[in-house]
């Protein structure tokens, strides 16, 4: 996966994820999110519009990031989910744990 991060004026980290998140690639995402959180960025908006596939390994990473972000008073949000990724979230009940926004605006606003 390719992970690109930009921090907007409001301090929200916009994290663009590209590729497939499986047990092999989830480590990269884990590190990228972990680094951001370690740097004090706890409002993370993940752009998943270029993620076509995710397995439970990816879900684990997202849960861990959400736990840390919440602990810091922030949150992980996602937007742009493909129908497959959305299905996986629903099956696993992760749509209850992470806010899934319809648009980037919704994901980056109202913290």
């Amino acid at each position, binding site marked *: 996966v390719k992970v690109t991060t930009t921090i907007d004026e409001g301090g929200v980290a916009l994290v663009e994820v590209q590729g497939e998140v499986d047990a092999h690639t989830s480590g990269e995402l884990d590190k990228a999110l972990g680094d951001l959180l370690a740097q004090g960025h706890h409002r993370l908006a993940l752009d998943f519009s270029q993620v076509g596939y995710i*397995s439970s390994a990816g*879900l684990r990473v997202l849960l861990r990031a959400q736990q840390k972000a919440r602990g810091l008073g922030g949150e992980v949000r996602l937007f742009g989910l493909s129908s497959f990724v959305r299905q996986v979230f629903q*099956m696993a009940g992760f749509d209850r744990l992470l806010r899934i926004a319809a648009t980037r605006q919704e994901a980056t606003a109202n913290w």
Partner: protein
Amino acid sequence: MTNDTSTLTIPNDTAYLPVVGAYVTTSALQAGFGEEDAGRIRLAVDEACTHVIETAFEPGEETTFTVTCQRSASGLRVVIADKGMPFNPAAVADYDPQAGLDRELGGLSFYLMKQVMDEVRFVGKGREGKELHLVKYLEAGNITTYFSEEELRPYEARVEPAPPGEYVFRLLQPAEAVEVARCVYKTYGYTYPGEHIYYPQRLIEMSRTGEQVSVVAISDKGEVAGYCAIFGGQADDPVRELGQAVVDPAHRGRRVLSRLLQFAIDQARARGMAGLFGEPVTNHTFSQQACIPLGFRDTALLLGYIPQSVYFKKIGEGALAQRETLLYSLLPLRAWAPAQLYPPPHHRAMLARIYENLGIARELAQAGRGASADEKNSLGPVSDRAHSLGPVSDRAHSLGPVSDRAHSLGPVSNRAHSLGPVSDRARPGARPGSVGDRPEQERAHSLGPVSLARWPGRADRARPGARPGSVGDRPEQERAHSLGPVSLARRPGRADRARPGERGGSVGDRPQQVGDRPEQVGDRPEQVGDRPEQERIFRTGPGGLALQRPEQSVLSTRVLSAINVARIEIATYGQHVTTEVEIKLNELCRKGIACIHLDLPLGDPWTAHLCADFEALGFLLAGVLPDPRGQDVLRLQFLNGVPIDFDKIHVASDVGQELLGYIRRMADS
């Protein structure tokens, strides 16, 4: 079928997961699934492969495993096979998708597999490794999508009989499939859940490929008057189930059923099958009475085995509370290979009666002569010897083929008095390097069965090592290790591996729950067919001595969730098998499984000795499931709080009634 099967061999490295993904997606699309289903199947296989890569091997071990895609008439079967460590699916944690942020993810992988696939099933292969079978059926329209609820109402007891006429009996034609599915539904409701019978399109495909042999009775007006099928397992299984029989009430009383069944039997014979079995209900005897003249013979009674007839709309309304008892009734279609079996002494007479009635060649090993009835484990003369060595019942357990042992009792007991020397003598054959620095006394136990040398050529059957639970007051664990040396030496790199139950606690939830087809003999070939390597090692122990049971049992568990039944199958008895079974039993009970079967290999002398231990856990005899290859199974059954009203079990055959009375007496005592 072979044209539709392909196998991918990949390294145990997550970097190859995309390769698996592409392969499985392509296979799913070719099998006729849409993009969305193909993606979901990919997810399940990805999860399974990740699990194998992350848990099955030693750290740093570089090896490969395989993913096989097998397209069948009804969908896609993906088999992930590895030769890594064993895995206990029952130990997988539950996953709760409703839980909060602190949720446990241990069971997530298997949860997703089960969400996506129609069947998720583990097949343990002992030393050969293990397989995970993932099956997804093509959606082809359940019978309820063809008819209204009104049209699917159960048959009325009284209907206007059809005008008299002739019937034609023949194989199903595609145009009749929808009507057949409706007949079955109207007769049985949803008591064949997970079966293809409710999907006319599958029925057509499976009948075409031979996965199922579907037989119909057609009236002279062209109506489907009746139907039955040979089904379950694999098309080439030597024994398959004959059932799903229905006769439209308007055509009853005209011998349609028996002629249908006869036609199916002729089909089976023409296909070279070794036998058929049926599982007639016992709330009435009509189907039993149809089976008896055709040659079916009762060999087991399965108490509370299926939920009472349940219709779709009733599911979840408590209709499962009452459970129905079935008979297992077998029809051999040709001569079966003779076999030597080791029945538990206390059940020998009943089993002899069953086999005699069935008329297949089976030699039942005799318990020692003069055994008193109350010594169900200890075998007559054996008890003399037992006094010199400790608890009677314990000693009895360590005996191999009973009849042979009885002849060599004297010398054995003499030797037994001098444990130290025995171990010394035996030691050269026991790979000294592996015995290491264990205390003398421990080795004595591990090398006990010196007398086996007296029966060259029989060592393979005996394996009468000291039973761990039986010897004195040392803790179980320690004794287990004292019996290990040979297995350690012969299984490099494996002996220190986790036993089932030690692993897997963190991984996934209950995959074995998903195989939801009612049980069939044909479903068992993986376990029963080839004895695992592990066992063969012990048959050819050093110096020609058979030593003891392997440390680890080879057993598999399967839950048939649709009928809430579980089956534990033992392929090889390990040293702690009773404890292993007890743990499994407890797990299954906690999960609310209503009925738990324990299948014991009757060709293994240990069955004669360990059966009573399992009965002490609360298992009752069910009967035997004979096998054309001689790998007969002794089935025990455990009812988890399921009430059985024996007065409401109706059995037609003499032997069936004897078996019912026999089981009833045991249940009462």
